[in-house]
Structure formats: C-alpha cells, structure tokens
C-alpha cells in the first residue's frame, strides 16, 4: 500500500502547482452538487411530494445517494480517462511498473479537487435526517455512516466497470455516463417513482436503490412501499461487495483484452 500512497502524494504535489485551478475545481464541484440539490428542491416544491415521499424524506435520499456518488467520483471517477491512456499508450507504462494496474490508476488520478460535492452531500446527511425527523438509535447512526460508504463502493464499481468497456470500445465516449451519472440521477429520487422493467433493471440489477433509497427507509423506519421484504433494506453492504467483485473481474478481463490487442 505504501507505494500507492507515494503515487498519490506525487500526483497531489503535481496538482498543487496549479493552485488557482485547484480551488476553481473545488468550487465547480460544489456548484454541481448545489445544482443537483436545487433540482430536487424545485421538483418537490412543485409537486409537494414524490412517489409517496415528502420533500424532507426525498432530500435525505438525495443526500445519501449524492454522498456515495461523490465519494466514488473523488476516488475512482477519473478512471474514465482510461480511454486516453489506451489511446496514448500510457497504459503500457502502467503495466511496466511492479504494481497493480487498477491501484496505480486510482492513486495517479485520485482527485481531491473534486471533494466539494462529497463534503457538501456528507454534511447534508445529518441535516436532512434531522429535517425528516429521523429517530436516532445506535444502529441508525451506523447506517447513516455506512450507507455513503457502501454507495461509494457501488458507484466506484460502476465507474470501473463502465470505464473497462473502453478496452473493447475505445470510442465509447459518453456511453459510460449513462450508468455513472445516470445511476446517480436514478438513486437521487425515491425508487417508487420508476416503472416496470426500468426500475427492476436499475434499482435491483445495477443496485442503485441500495445507494440512497433503502438506507433512507431504515433511517426513517418505514416499510418498503414497493413491498420488498424487511431484510431487503439491509443488503446495501452485500450489494456493494458483489458489485465490487463483478467490476474487479470485468476489469481483469478488460486488461486481458488489452493485452491481446494492444493499442
């Protein structure tokens, strides 16, 4: 691990030379977080409630999901640059060092300048929880802390898996956004608003309901309006773990693909 930490420090030192740019990025990241929450506020304001959830409850879902996404974006978000690495041959240099490829990429691209949104959303979790009238118990406290972390693992897995597509499809361009930013938008809202197959695929297939919706149900002490069994809401850690394993396996297939085709 020490080597990866060194790589990260080197990257951070490099970035620190562009001080104005750094603070600009922090501000922009916060700005995008604010914009997303404003969007949630506007829609709730116009409709009163959404999918059976009040504005306060909806904001709690958005804060939990937003914190998970932002944390993942902070740590592995730049893995989408793999396209450029493959195109420029930088990926070769990564494979020539005596360290794991994914670990190197994460350490090299870890972007503290994107912390704005993560800090904003994390700070909003207790605020929105109080606003939604959460009755605190030690278990719920633990859920409030763990939920963004599980969400981060889930979104991190989505970032890695969609970026891996570039090993086969170098011009995949915006394709990954459907699942990364699309997944973020999906999990910002109560899962009850979606219909039919679309909900089944994204809420359960990709697991996005476990980033904000189900942890919020636990905090609020509400049964699942979708009729899921009570234990379903507690599966977030398992869903995150499965997603991470699947993404890891897919990544390894991707690297093998790269090795058989080159750039």
């Amino acid at each position: 691990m020490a080597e990866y930490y060194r790589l990260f420090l080197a990257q951070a030192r490099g970035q620190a030379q562009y001080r104005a740019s750094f603070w600009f990025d922090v501000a922009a990241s916060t700005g995008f977080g604010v914009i997303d929450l404003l969007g949630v506020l506007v829609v709730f304001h116009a409709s009163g409630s959404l999918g059976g959830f009040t504005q306060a409850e909806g904001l709690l879902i958005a804060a939990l999901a937003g914190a998970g996404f932002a944390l993942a974006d902070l740590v592995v978000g730049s893995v989408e640059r793999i396209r450029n690495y493959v195109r420029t041959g930088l990926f070769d240099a990564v494979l020539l060092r005596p360290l794991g490829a994914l670990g190197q990429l994460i350490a090299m691209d870890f972007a503290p300048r994107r912390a704005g949104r993560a800090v904003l959303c994390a700070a909003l979790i207790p605020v929105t929880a109080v606003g939604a009238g959460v009755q605190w118990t030690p278990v719920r406290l633990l859920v409030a802390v763990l939920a963004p972390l599980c969400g981060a693992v889930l979104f991190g897995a989505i970032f890695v898996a969609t970026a891996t597509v570039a090993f086969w499809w170098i011009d995949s361009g915006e394709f990954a956004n459907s699942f990364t930013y699309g997944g973020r938008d999906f999990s910002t809202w109560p899962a009850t608003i979606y219909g039919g197959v679309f909900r089944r695929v994204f809420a359960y297939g990709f697991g996005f309901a476990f980033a904000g919706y189900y942890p919020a149900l636990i905090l609020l002490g509400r049964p699942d309006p979708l009729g899921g069994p009570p234990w379903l809401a507690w599966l977030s850690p398992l869903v995150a773990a499965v997603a991470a394993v699947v993404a890891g396996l897919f990544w390894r297939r991707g690297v093998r693909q790269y090795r058989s085709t080159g750039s």
Partner: protein
Amino acid sequence: MPPLTVYWALVRAGFRRYSTYRQATVAGATTNVMFGFLRTYGMFAAAAAAGGVLAGYDRPRLATFVWVSQGMLATINIWGPPEYAERVRTGDAVTDLLRPVHPVWQLLAVDLGRAGFALLTRFVAPVVVGALAFGLYAPARWSTYPAFALSLVLALLVTFGCRHALFCSVHWLLDVRGPMTAWVLFSTLLSGMVFPLWILPEPLPALVVYGMPFASMVQAPMDVLVERGDPLRLLLTQAAWAAVALPAAVLIQRRGERKMVIQGG
C-alpha cells in the same frame, strides 16, 4: 461577401465530418435515452403528486417535453467541446483569418451541417424511443409544426451565438475551463433540460424564460411543440436573444482577432 455556394459547401462539410463519428453518435444517443427514462419518471411522479397536471403540462406533454429535449441537446450542441477555443489556444485559429470567409459565419455554417446530421440521428433516436415507451403529444394546430421548426433553428442560433461569445474569452483568459464550467452549471438548471422552467417558484419562471438566453435554447421550442403558452411570444423571445447573441459573438470575435493579430496569440 462570398457567394452562398461557399456557405453551402461548409454546411455539407460539417454534415460529413460529424457523420464519420458513428460510434460516438451511438454512445451519445444511448445516454440521451437513459436520461429520457429518468426524467420522464421523475416528471410523471411529480405530476401525479400535483394532481395529474404539473404547471400546465399533462402526461403526454411532459413525455414530449422530456424526450424531445433529450433529442435537442445534441442537435443544438449545448455541451459540445469548445473547439474554437482549442484552435485559438494551439494557434490554429490564425489560419481561419487567411480564408476569405468571415470566421463566425464560417463556423456557423459548419455548425448547421453538424446540426443537420444530429437531427437525423441524435434527435430522432430518443424521440422514437420516447414515442414507443410512453406515447407523445400530437400538436392540435397544423401551424405548430412550422413554428417548431423555426423555433429549433432559433434555438440553434442562440446556442451557437452564446457559446461562440464564450469561446472567444480564450483570447483574454487563455483557458476557457472557467467560463465553460459556469456555462454547464447555468445551462443545466436554467435551460429547461432538467425540468420545465414553469415549475420554478414565482416570480422566477417569467424572469428565467424571458430574461435569460438559456430558456430560448431548450424550453421555448418544447413549449411551442406541446402548445403551452403563446407561440408568437416564445418565437419573438428567441428571435430577440438570437439578435443579441449573434452580433455579440461577431463583436467579441473581432476584438479577440485584433488581440491575436497584435499580440500574436
């Protein structure tokens, strides 16, 4: 002024250039479809909670608003890469001055060609998916169709003018990352691509729709299409913003050129 055939050739070149980006077109259309579903369900839920109609939009109008606006995003190229700024930064833009065609009209012609290709692909794909999945609103008046076509062209002109004016800031700032980020922030919230602007709390809607250019890029054509509000007023608003944005782009371009010629970049 060069003959119209020159501009026509530029339009065709723009069309051809973008028609070679097939894979990016497929990837982009996929994203539009994904966000089409997300936004439709969000708007339907909001309408259901508000009693079936949200700020004057019923379900077919909301579905149309969402899916057609997803198609429009690529057509007006609201978030496209700042190519001109990149050309200035690398110094390639100097060669544009050597051509006997005004740089802004030259870029506009190419952009129209690009929009033509986007209209056939990126616009059609989400509209078809939306129509199959949710059904779309059929305009009641025949005059809505030509009005929408005109509104679409005006949206394209406003977007092009605003974006080019923004790109020209590269002549002074050397890097357009700041202005571009601000552009994405504002255009996300205030163009109508995330939600119809009429659901904003009073007195914001009128202020945003008429007092800022963003609504003329997405919201106005959608309102014309779903026949919400007076189409003439919407078209006049768009025309007014086009009449501001394009001359502003030409003016700032001229200033920037002078700076480039005098200071060499």
